[in-house]
């Protein structure tokens, strides 16, 4: 772990909240912010609003400046408090990671720096060590899941293709005098690189599409007006957030709240729970055209993003046009209200509420099995770096005659190696020894 680079991480959970906290710490923290700011930053002020230039537009954000050694890490630190939208936070983190000498923090790295600079006591360090270990495990689990998921498999294939191509380029450099070594033709290499670039670009685009939607699994409560959705919403969150009203359409907009569920085997699963307005076609009180359209739009949008749909119906008939993950017979205050294939729940007696929470966590996790899909910001930064390095490789060989070997093979190899290293955490690390192994396996080396 080095302390000369500037590290960045989002300190708040990834959710829509009023404000997010992004922490940037290290010798370059102030310079880095200056590079993003529209106007030079007044370094004498501790707190103020900065206007940062991002690809999505200029973002005004509250910022707190802490000079070394008077910060948590003992290094220059900037705390940014942008609006808590995942899209904004992601764009900001990405812009910070693109700056020179800035990288994503490792698990517990802020605390490690704090300890190393003497800001934490020995006793506190014990706690820090324990929490780093815990986060490390969680991070490795996440990485493991990523590698096992479909995304991981796609990256593993990419890493494999890249390592094979690199082996062919390296063979021409390290074993040029060997009679059986046939250098890869520039045309062939261009084709392989194009395929890899195409795949990476699609991955990056896909990620942005998904993330614009939400960073966390989304569960929606759907059903006819007055089906008890809002009561259930409040009961699951165990507080009174939404206005519960016996009047239909009290819930006109989707209300989204994070819900953390402590699951005995899955650990803490945090989801976004949305309370949808009632379905207009089931309304007993007619809505005017405009109202109807706007309510429908809110529902459609939420349903499209939803990972889990909780369909609520106190009648047990479950007439519903879309897919439902769990059927809930709401307002099941009396034991006789049993419906086949549905879970009876009651906010009044508390019937099955705990069971529902666990089921919700399981459904969310299984819906997101492939949602490793949404790469973590550090992973996205790595994929971006690989993409850049491969694009440069492509430029290096762009004008080489297709049948001949790359004229600047050593430069192409240097960029390909960078790309391969960047992809290590996504598709498995490839040590130079392994590249050599591929050469020995495909060519008879040794005169």
């Amino acid at each position, binding site marked *: *772990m080095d302390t000369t680079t500037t590290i960045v991480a989002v300190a708040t959970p990834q959710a829509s909240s009023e404000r997010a906290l992004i922490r940037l710490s290290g010798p370059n923290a102030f310079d880095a912010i200056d590079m993003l700011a529209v106007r030079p930053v007044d370094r004498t002020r501790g707190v103020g609003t900065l206007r940062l230039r991002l690809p999505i537009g200029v973002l005004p954000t509250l910022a707190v400046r802490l000079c070394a050694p008077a910060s948590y890490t003992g290094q220059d630190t900037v705390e940014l408090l942008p609006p808590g939208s995942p899209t904004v936070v992601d764009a900001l983190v990405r812009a910070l990671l693109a700056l020179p000498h800035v990288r994503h923090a490792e698990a517990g790295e802020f605390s490690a720096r704090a300890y190393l600079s003497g800001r934490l006591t020995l006793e506190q360090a014990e706690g820090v060590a324990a929490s780093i270990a815990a986060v490390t495990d969680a991070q490795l689990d996440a990485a493991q899941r990523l590698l096992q998921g479909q995304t991981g498999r796609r990256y593993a294939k990419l890493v494999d293709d890249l390592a094979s191509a690199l082996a062919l380029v390296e063979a021409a450099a390290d074993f040029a005098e060997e009679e059986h070594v046939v250098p890869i033709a520039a045309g062939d290499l261009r084709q392989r690189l194009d395929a890899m670039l195409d795949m990476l670009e699609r991955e990056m685009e896909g990620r942005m599409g998904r993330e614009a939607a939400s960073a966390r699994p989304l569960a929606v409560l759907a059903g006819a007006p007055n089906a008890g959705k809002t009561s259930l919403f409040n009961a699951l969150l165990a507080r009174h957030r939404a206005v519960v009203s016996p009047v239909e359409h009290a819930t006109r907009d989707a209300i989204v709240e994070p819900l953390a569920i402590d699951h005995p085997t899955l650990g803490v699963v945090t989801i976004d729970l949305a309370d949808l307005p009632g379905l207009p076609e089931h309304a007993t009180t007619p809505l005017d055209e405009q109202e109807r359209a706007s309510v429908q739009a809110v529902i459609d949008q939420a349903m499209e993003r939803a990972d889990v749909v909780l369909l609520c119906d106190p009648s047990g008939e479950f007439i519903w046009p879309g897919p439902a993950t769990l059927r809930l017979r709401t307002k099941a205050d009396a034991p006789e209200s049993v419906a086949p294939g549905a879970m009876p729940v009651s906010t009044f007696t508390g019937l099955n509420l705990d069971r529902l929470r666990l089921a919700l966590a399981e459904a969310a996790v299984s819906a997101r099995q492939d949602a490793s899909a949404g790469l973590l910001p550090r992973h996205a930064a790595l994929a971006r770096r690989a993409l850049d390095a491969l694009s440069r490789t492509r430029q290096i060989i762009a004008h080489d005659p297709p049948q001949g070997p790359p004229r600047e093979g050593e430069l192409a190899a240097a960029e390909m190696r960078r790309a391969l290293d960047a992809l290590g955490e996504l598709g498995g690390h490839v040590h130079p020894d392994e590249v050599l192994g591929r050469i020995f396996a495909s060519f008879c080396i040794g*005169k």
Partner: protein
Amino acid sequence: MGETPFHAVVVIGGGHAGVEAAWAAANMLGGEGTVGLVTLRADTVGTMSCNPAIGGLAKGQLVNEIDALGGLMALAADATGINFALLNRSRGPAVRGPRTQSDKHAYARAIRGMIAARPEIVSYEAAVESFLLEGDRVVGVRLGPGTGEVQLFPETIRAGAVVLTTGTFMRGLMHTGEQKTSGGRFGEGPSVGISAELQRLGFELGRLRTGTPPRLKKSTIAWDRLDVQPPDEMPEPFSTLTPLPGSVGTGWSVGPVRANRFPVLPPTACRKTSTAPDAHEFVRANLHRAPMFRGDLAPGPRYCPSIEDKVHRFAERTSHTVFLEPESLESDWVYCNGIATSLPADVQEVVVRTMPGCENAHVYRWGYAVEYDMVRPHQIEATGRTKRYAGLYLAGQINGTSGYEEAAAQGLVAGVNAALDAMGREPNFVLGRDEAYIGVLMDDLVTRTPVEPYRMFTSRAEHRLQLRSDNAPDRLTPHAMALGLLNTTDLGRQRAEAFASRQQDIESLRSIIAQTRVDGQPMAQALRRPDYDDARFGQDVAMAAGKPFDPRVLRAVSAEVRYEPYIQRQAGEVRRQREMERRRIPTHVDYRAMTSLRTEARQALDRFRPTTFGQASRLEGVTPADLTLLSVLVARLR
């Protein structure tokens, strides 16, 4: 001899690692009799056991680096080379590798002559039986009879530090077919006691194998019928002290060895032949007689497969090229490059006799495989010092490497550190992975256990674009000067002066480049064009400066400018890596007590005991998050 002599540094073994270690220690220490060199047989010092060639891709860079640090190998190779060729000449400067075949007798004689010329070095012909210990420090060696003629040696030698270089001799066992012979090299016995001694001291040993081809009598080969492999017309020396061909300079001399012109020995061509399909059939039918297919052999190198291995693994090939390389101008022995083997003599005979031109060849010596003990290198630090015992250094094949150049490079590192140790200074001479192939070599050894004899390749160096043959002095001679390697001899002082004038030339070239335009563009940009070659560059700068520049300086600067944008891109990573290398980890950490570390990370750290966070980061099974945790745990120990 009843007395117990003392030497600041005692080197055991007179192979390529041993002589380089003794030479470096002598350069560091100066004085008289400061270095002891113990070898089984004094007349085999500097022997080229296998292919009489020095250099090649990545290996050539190692030799240049040894030269830049005031070493021995480049000088001996320049004085005795008979077939110089720059490999990959048509490719970029970062992947060009100088190579030569040397006259093996002249080479060994040059090495012996240069060693003998050093008043610092005292030689002993003896075997080391055990180490003298004081606590955890090795303070000398106990000797027994060697295999040479002189049987006069002291019982013990005391030392400030000891460098052990055993080559292929530790429990060496040679195989030719079913036949097994004890020994480290043809006609020479093994060293047995030392393995047991190292085990007794608690070292974990491993076993490796390498092989060598048959040698033929040149006059029995239809030499003139075969294709010629000529050497380069304009050969390039390894050492920057050796004059370029055609140029008149003072060159250099050490004792009886000199190079005041280049090449020193007359260039000699090799010939090319090939194995026959019938031979492949015969080998295939006799595979069961090859020791490696009986499964009782230690792992050998994948990059240097035996002919039986080639036939087995690449069955679709019906022929392999064989280079016939004269071993010496003084003998008519020919080395068959390409058919290393441990097959029985009758099978080797068929392989040889079916090669065109070799139908009547007389075989001087059959090929054989040799197995030997190594000390698994996770037990040394990147300085060559063992983690277990202060004052004990290991270098060369004992650390699981193969190749003269790899051995010599380690010898130099161990020799310098042993001398520092003996002088009471911190033995901390370690080169970075971004500074030298030598740095890559030492770092790879201490972060990964070799599964085959380790050989250097350019692809092992992530900073390959910086680690070039042309800039070795610029990268490393400042280290040599800071260490004091160039203060003790005339040769060293000559090198320091040559370096100073080279730096001046480089500076003035850089300023010319900054001020000159070529074809309407800045010269730096022109240098990145493939069509703007060193010849045009040389003309243009000579015009601007009013005097020609040394081609070696031209090459270094043009390569530097060409690669500059790429090297710049790596600068951040280099900086970060250096910071990691700067942060040290005590070697005596109790990793087993660090229960918050993941088991896999804990095991890797416990085995390799990295001395820096940089090394730790390269261990298999250690993640960046583990390092964060480790940094907290280690800081707590302080």
